């Protein structure tokens, strides 16, 4: 699928972040440490997949023709996905999943708040829904950081290890390419660079309270926005897209 229109490309990016994050979370279903947490992870997964659907539906509307939300989810290959690498990393252990979630939620809340001001009314409307949910997400993932970081020696160590592994993927969140810059100038997109300080403030405050250490920058891995991904995304897509690949157009 060839995407030319800048707005459509931007909307699909946001959809990709949400879908891949939602799918990774959904992998925890029936595997979480206890029932309430299983339900919570599934709920958050549902919020993200729902968010992806709204972005993809909007992108499909912008493209017109035969394209539907499913075309974006099921009929694109790995190089066509433009999600952040942070979202696609394998779920790891519970600490890794929650640390990833916290780092993302701490960004997602100010991002959706800023997107509410978008000059594009549909993006603003989606953001207004997502923002309320992000508040819940951040409250919950922050709570887990405190419990795990300031918990047992093992939970603390696993958390700190996860943060060290994740940190090099956080730069990409605040990277803006020409596409974003043009849309920022038009008042449509959010300049994520401007969110970095508020993100770092939330992260630093929470990690300190959780007796964890903010990792030192060891470089940055990027590429997701250009379709250059880790090996892991291909395996995720293979599982997620299997039915539609094997039986194109299959319906429930």
């Amino acid at each position: 699928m060839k995407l030319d229109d800048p707005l459509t490309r931007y909307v699909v990016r946001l959809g990709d972040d949400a879908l891949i994050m939602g799918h990774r979370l959904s992998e925890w279903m029936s595997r979480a440490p206890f029932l309430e947490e299983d339900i919570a992870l599934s709920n958050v997964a549902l919020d993200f997949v729902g968010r992806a659907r709204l972005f993809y539906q909007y992108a499909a509307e912008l493209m017109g023709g035969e394209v539907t939300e499913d075309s974006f989810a099921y009929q694109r290959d790995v190089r066509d996905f433009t999600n952040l690498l942070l979202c696609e990393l394998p779920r790891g252990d519970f600490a890794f999943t929650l640390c990833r979630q916290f780092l993302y939620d701490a960004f997602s809340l100010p991002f959706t708040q800023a997107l509410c001001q978008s000059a594009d009314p549909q993006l603003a409307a989606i953001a207004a829904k997502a923002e309320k949910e992000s508040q819940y997400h951040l409250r919950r993932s922050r709570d887990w950081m405190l419990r795990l970081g300031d918990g047992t020696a093992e939970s603390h160590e696993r958390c700190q290890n996860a943060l060290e592994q994740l940190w090099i993927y956080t730069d990409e969140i605040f990277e803006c390419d020409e596409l974003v810059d043009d849309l920022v100038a038009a008042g449509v997109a959010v300049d994520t660079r401007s969110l970095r300080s508020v993100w770092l403030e939330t992260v630093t405050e929470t990690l300190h309270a959780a007796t964890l250490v903010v990792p030192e920058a060891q470089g940055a891995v990027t590429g997701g926005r250009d379709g250059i991904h880790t090996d892991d995304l291909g395996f995720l897509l293979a599982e997620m897209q299997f039915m539609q690949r094997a039986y194109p157009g299959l319906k429930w």
Partner: protein
Amino acid sequence: MNRAKADCIPLLPVEELARRRRRHESSVGDIWTLLDDVMDPEIPVISLYELGVLQDISRDGDTVKLVLTPTYIGCPALGIMEEDARAALTAGGYAQVTVETRLAPAWTTAWLTPEARRKMAEYGVASPEAGGTTCPQCGSANTEVISEFGSTACKSLFRCVACYEPFDVFKAL
């Protein structure tokens, strides 16, 4: 008017006022009434209208157009609500139905009327209140949260410290 009396006047969010006005001034009042029988699939004691999901109804020739708004973005019940509304309209003699999903204004629990809140509490689901969450079983205010996320996207799970019963609470959104 003294202040105490003014405080008793229930304040309606402007979006909710506009929605009620749409219904009140609608030329298809019978269709609104017909859909009052379509209940929320998860809390089957309050209607889609009472929940605030049913935003508008209009008619163009033989086609009835519904406007729905989701509670939560990923709420899988929205599809069921749409199906149920279509089935009710078909049974009522309106075969051609289109449904538009509208996101703005974003749904909020502030739209729930006291009447809807009362019905929900009787059903066992507490609604968010400014002064804290009270147990829908025994009315005690001594309650605690078990999980921020409950049996559906729109609910969290609480426990009553007085009567030990766990219960669902509509998340304040």
